[in-house]
């Protein structure tokens, strides 16, 4: 039974229950979480690739920026319990990227600079549910938050919104990524509180 420390309070606050999933609290700042050093790929060398389809498709940074893109305002939920409402992003829908490829895959694995990976079922990244975002709050995405571009899958826990994303590999089988292979839930739906294996 832990000792309660008089006068100590956590910083988070509660929010509207229809927007804050179970076990989460609201934060005003934007915590930076990282499992390794921040990569710094020059934009002249940056490419985004979709593999696993009939043939690989790749865009340079300039080509990527010319793809149809959109503003996205979403709530985000980190498995470490903070949630942030109405975050504003700009990026390319994953639907646009996958439309460039012929495939019949059921899953994707995201690969990132620095070696991070995360896996998702196809239906969690299609039909307007996922983006590759390069702008946050009107500014180019900061490297510490995943810039130049990160995956954005706001309806799942934010570890799925992989920072420094460089490619999506289309697959028939689901294989766990970096955190999914070490305790975190294979899918990660915050409304079902799917934080860990077996939740």
């Amino acid at each position, binding site marked *: 039974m832990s*000792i309660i420390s008089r006068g*100590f309070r956590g910083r988070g606050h509660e929010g509207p229950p229809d927007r804050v999933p179970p076990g989460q609290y609201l934060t005003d700042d934007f915590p930076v979480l990282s499992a390794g050093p921040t990569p710094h790929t020059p934009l002249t060398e940056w490419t985004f690739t979709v593999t696993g389809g009939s043939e690989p498709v790749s865009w340079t940074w300039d080509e990527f920026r010319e793809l149809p893109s959109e503003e996205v305002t979403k709530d985000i939920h980190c498995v470490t319990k903070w949630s942030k409402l109405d975050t504003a992003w700009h990026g390319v829908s994953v639907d646009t990227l996958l439309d460039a490829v012929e495939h019949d895959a059921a899953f994707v694995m995201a690969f990132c600079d620095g070696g991070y990976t995360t896996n998702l079922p196809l239906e969690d990244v299609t039909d307007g549910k996922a983006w590759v975002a390069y702008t946050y709050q009107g500014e180019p995405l900061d490297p510490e938050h995943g810039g130049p571009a990160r995956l954005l899958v706001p309806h799942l826990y934010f570890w799925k919104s992989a920072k420094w994303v460089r490619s999506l590999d289309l697959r028939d089988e689901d294989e766990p990524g970096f955190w999914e292979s070490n305790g975190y839930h294979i899918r990660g739906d915050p409304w079902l509180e799917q934080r860990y294996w077996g939740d």
Partner: protein
Amino acid sequence: MAGAALLGRLTWLAAEVVDAVQETPRVRTLVLEADGWDGHRAGQHVDVRLTAEDGYQAERSYSIASAPGEPLAVTVEELEDGEVSPYLVSEAHEGDRFEIRGPIGGYFVWDGSGEPPVLLIAGGSGVVPLMSMIRHRARTGSRTPTRLLYSSRSYEDVIYRAELDEPADGLEVFQTLTRSQPPGWAGYARRIDAEMLGEVAWPAAEEPRVFVCGSTRFVDTAADGLVGMGYPPQSIRTERFGATG
């Protein structure tokens, strides 16, 4: 036996604040009493855990400032967006309780003795574990030649200032103030660099032992500088403090 607590399972102990000393505007030392505390070695730290009424918990590590044998004391710097440090520095008072576990650390420890000289390099609140070493050295009457190079932002930020103004025999204290210096300041006035290390550090040939503590950037700069002077990397022990509190 002090030090035996180094090994074995750790449990959370109830600690009570029995005294508080404001060291600088943002830094405070808390003297603690904890049932079951078994003593420590100079350089070790404790984990502190705070629990709020709603069950929310936060945990951070703080270095022990006291020497082995003295009442247990931790020195904490309040960080602007910290979660635990603002509570410990600005809120907690005598009689308040929280949980600690420790002592922790078998690498960044010095028993204050030995023939080869010792170089201690501190950045900001990184001076805390080194102060435990300095105090232990003094209490044991050690003759090990020791130098402290201590970097702070300004004169007001120098922790243990009065104590360091009267160093024990065989301890030399070098200070640098990186942001502002008082009139008549005779110490260094810039961030540590290779030139400063060249002037303060023992020659590598004397095979000194080194302990460096501070922010990651500070520690890496100091360690790289010493390696550049010919110090074998294994002679340098480092502890990086995070900027969260």
